[in-house]
């Protein structure tokens, strides 16, 4: 039941009490899509209002609240408190399988540590992409080891405690050897399907980046 506007305006020759003015700017700032200048506030409020003063009161009222008054340029806006930004985010965690390239690189590091990038590449037969190493570093499954005392003093990679914890190993030496892998049936001589990366190994720079889209997903089978 809205009252006629004219009537209200006429009855407000005297400026409304400050508490009322505070309510008014509160409502205007809340509903406005853009920051509002003091001048604009005064224009919209009943004659004789003092938006600047009302803003001082309102700002004080919202101190420490979940919503704060902010000044941008000479305009004012209400915003959620910066420390509560996390409430505006929704994080979903998705777990994916490591790519084949990452697993192979990780396996080589685990079995051969400390190992240089060049050595990993030699064993894998393909170059190792930066992304793969970075990913493993970020997961904290590998870290830099001591530099090798060979020309160029290349950095080496070793696996971390986190790696051992994740895989339930006491030390990297506990990893089963080739013979054990074979007797465990993990080395059955089954031909690789023709479409698998590594089939024309050597040309395949890095299976991560070179694969067509369709194949890409397959690597993340989950």
């Amino acid at each position: 039941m809205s009252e006629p506007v004219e009537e209200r305006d006429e009855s407000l020759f005297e400026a409304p009490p400050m508490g009322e003015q505070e309510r008014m700017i509160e409502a205007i700032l809340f509903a406005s899509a853009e920051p509002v200048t003091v001048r604009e506030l005064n224009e919209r409020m009943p004659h004789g209002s003092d938006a600047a003063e009302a803003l001082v009161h309102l700002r004080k009222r919202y101190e420490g609240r979940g919503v704060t008054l902010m000044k941008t340029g000479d305009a004012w806006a209400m915003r959620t408190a910066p420390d509560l930004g996390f409430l505006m985010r929704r994080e979903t965690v998705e777990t994916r399988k490591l790519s084949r390239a990452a697993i192979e690189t990780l396996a080589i590091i685990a079995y051969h540590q400390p190992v240089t990038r060049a050595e990993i590449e030699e064993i894998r037969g393909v170059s190792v992409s930066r992304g793969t190493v970075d990913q493993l570093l970020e997961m904290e499954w590998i870290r830099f080891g001591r530099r090798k005392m060979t020309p160029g003093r290349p950095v080496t990679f070793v696996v971390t405690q986190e790696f051992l914890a994740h895989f339930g190993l006491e030390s990297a030496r506990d990893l089963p050897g080739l013979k054990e892998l074979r007797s465990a049936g993990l080395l059955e001589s089954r031909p690789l399907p023709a479409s698998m990366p590594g089939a024309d190994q050597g040309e395949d720079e890095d299976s991560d980046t070179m694969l067509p889209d369709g194949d890409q997903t397959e690597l993340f089978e989950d």
Partner: protein
Amino acid sequence: MSDDDFDAATPERIADRMAAEALIVDVDGFEGPLDLLLTLSRTQKVDLRKISILHLAQQYLAFVEKARALRIELAADYLVMAAWLAFLKSRLLLPPDPEEEGPSGEELAAHLAFQLERLQAMRDAAARLMGRDRLGRDFFARGVPEEITRTRRITYTATLLDLMQGYARIRTRDEFRPYAMDRDSIWSLEQALERMRGLIGFAGTWTDISTYLPDGFGHDPARRRSATASTFAATLELAKEGRIELRQADTFAPIQLRRKD
């Protein structure tokens, strides 16, 4: 009350008639007989619960008469209502016939009164509803709603088995080498046969065998060789099955085939 009585030129009646005429002018403004009845009932200036249905029926019939006189075409449902109200009027005026089946005139009148009251009530309710403070008119939502940003965090995982299999794959790759041959440039006999079986149905006339090479095998020499060999072998197979005929004009001339009907 009779029709004569109704037409008597008392000031009140004149007002009624003027109202009726005014109504006729914008007959299109009515949303049907019930709406018209409700409007007419207002001229009785009494509580809808105490309305005289008999009087209302007479008003309605008079309205329809006027409309006819002014040659205003009324929709069928107005006329249906008129007929029914005439029937109701007679029921209300005549003493009840014990032989008659169905509801009495009073019951019918009561229901009509109920319908009118209900329609009016709904109209009042609608007006109150629309008069409420409304979102976007009287009260307002936040001007700059903040979207909830949805971030997807991806964590990667692997099992020990993945790890060992991965390692085994690398270390034993050489064992697999013979199997990992490049089959990209090979068009097998099976593939050629399958392709030919599907196509020979359309070979009603002599067609060059080279037109049956699969797409992408025509240019690269290695691929072309493979496809030509397998396609040729396939045609021989099909000829043996009696599905096609083959011919060659001369040594090294193009080989042609045709469906055998």
